[in-house]
């Protein structure tokens, strides 16, 4: 397997953090820009801004799915779903703490959340490694990455529904109507599903990343539906773009499946084996 060229963990960390934070910050910067530009362009910027939060979320899903893959390769079969859940658990605590503690310095929120999540992830990884003694060499690094990507997923998709990442706004538009549970649960499945679905000795990173893109896009589409309730037109853009992205990634995933599978047949008997 090692002869196949893979994206290195560092590349994906950069992709997740830069892509994720860029998307999240654009939800805040674009409307501010839109205020200064009058006319249709300014309005358009206002409407499309929340969609970037979801795009940032997809970057974080792909990063998180790869982090899950690296740690779960050490034989965590049934542990994969648990890792997705713990990621979101750490992520949501850090996200809410980070966004709430900064009060008026709103722009610092996502960064504080990311740092908090990394610290929580590091501590949990350290405990798993040194107290429970799970003896997985990449445990500490991967738990840190998983928590950090979890917090970006939460903030990104919440921003897509709430319009931006102001804490009061998120409480009003994402918590009070219960959409946060969809962010939490579907986000967790989006992150854990790629490795869980590709588990096996011939698992390949490329296929997994395409699948991560597709699960992230599904989450984006659902956030789009929820955003039609809270934001109106922006939600429709998020929904349509989510479906388009899903079709692209899903198709790419299937191309990889056709390429990787031993054989893809319409129907037929079981091939003869030694057993």
């Amino acid at each position, binding site marked *: 397997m090692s002869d196949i060229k893979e994206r290195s963990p560092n590349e994906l960390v950069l992709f997740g953090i830069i892509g994720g934070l860029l998307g999240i910050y654009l939800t805040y910067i674009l409307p501010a820009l839109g205020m200064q530009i009058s006319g249709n362009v300014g309005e358009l910027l206002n409407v499309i801004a929340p969609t970037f939060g979801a795009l940032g979320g997809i970057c974080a899903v792909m990063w998180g799915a790869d982090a899950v893959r690296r740690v779960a390769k050490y034989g965590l*079969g*049934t542990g*994969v*779903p648990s890792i*997705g*859940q713990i990621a979101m658990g750490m992520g949501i605590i850090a996200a809410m703490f980070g966004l709430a503690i900064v009060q008026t310095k709103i722009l610092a929120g996502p960064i504080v959340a990311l740092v908090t999540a990394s610290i929580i992830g590091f501590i949990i990884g350290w405990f798993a490694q040194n107290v429970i003694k799970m003896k997985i060499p990449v445990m500490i690094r991967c738990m840190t990455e998983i928590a950090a990507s979890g917090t970006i997923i939460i903030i990104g998709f919440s921003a897509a529904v709430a319009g931006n990442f102001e804490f009061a706004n998120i409480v009003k538009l994402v918590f*009070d*109507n*219960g*959409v946060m*549970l*969809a962010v939490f*649960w*579907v986000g*967790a*499945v989006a992150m*854990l*599903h*790629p490795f*869980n*679905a*590709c*588990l*096996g*000795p*011939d*698992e*390949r990173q490329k*296929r997994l990343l395409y*699948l991560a893109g*597709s*699960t992230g896009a*599904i989450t984006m589409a*659902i956030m789009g*539906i*929820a955003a*039609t*309730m809270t934001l109106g037109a922006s939600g429709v853009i998020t929904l349509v773009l989510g479906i388009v992205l899903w079709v692209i990634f*899903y198709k790419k*995933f*299937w191309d*990889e*499946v056709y390429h*990787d*599978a*031993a*054989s*893809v*047949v*319409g*129907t*037929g*008997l*079981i*091939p003869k*084996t*030694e*057993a």
Partner: protein
Amino acid sequence: MVLDLTMSMAVLALLGALATIAGCLEDLESDVGSQSNPNSQVQLAPQMGFLHRIFNKAISGEPISNGMSAVIGGTVTTVLLSQKFYPLTAIVIGAFIGAIILGIFATTSYAGRVASQTRFKQPLYMDIMRYTTPTIIGHNFIMNFCLVAIAYIQFEVLGYPFTIPFLALIWGISVGAIGSSVGDVHYGGEREFQNREFGCGLNTALSGRIVRKAESGLRNSIDNVWFCAKFGGPATGIALGLTVFFSSWPTTLFGYTWTAIGIGVLIVAVLTIMNRLIELNVRHAYGPYKEEKNEKEAKA
């Protein structure tokens, strides 16, 4: 909304009925895809040289996958209700979208898992994909419909302080957990290893040696759900329905009083005694397992 006793009993009966259907369909849906407990043997079989035509729906455990489809259903329903849709329409559309998304996840997990078993030469059967996925979606749709309907009744009629997505998620997790603990037991050992004696347990030598041939032709996941629909599914449904009924019945009848708590404790005590009696009865009827001759050969 304050209801009189007759009306609250009627609502309780409706909740119980919906929960029974949801529980039954949830278990059958997980069996169509051999999710959860039976999944490990389906996954293991190709490695042992036993290629098969059984769907491999590895979307995490049942609580998580059903929680996901239910919370999507609840969220979409909330959105539609806010646009003044008629409640029944909103619930149906919400449940349908949740089921479709679960179906999409199911296709990726079957394709992904098979593609990751290339070295064992397991083929990806597209006909299995084509007729098993709609079955999964169908079962999941009914389950979603029942759960979101329960959430809607609790939110709108009974005035629970939680939102519809929240209640739907909790119900999804509960039905998944009950389906996993009650229904799975029926499919794993009995169907995949039905050429062994009942209750023989699974020793390591038998791992992955699942039954792959049906009465006529090759066995597939639809044969498995047919088997589970006889007992596993209904048992799960009754388990969830009774859980809902017994946990709400005392408070509906006596209000939030000590009498209700006392009756609740009494119900738990009676059920514990009944469980113990059944266990003793089964032990007496079947006794400890005796190893058969052909299994000794298989070990050697």
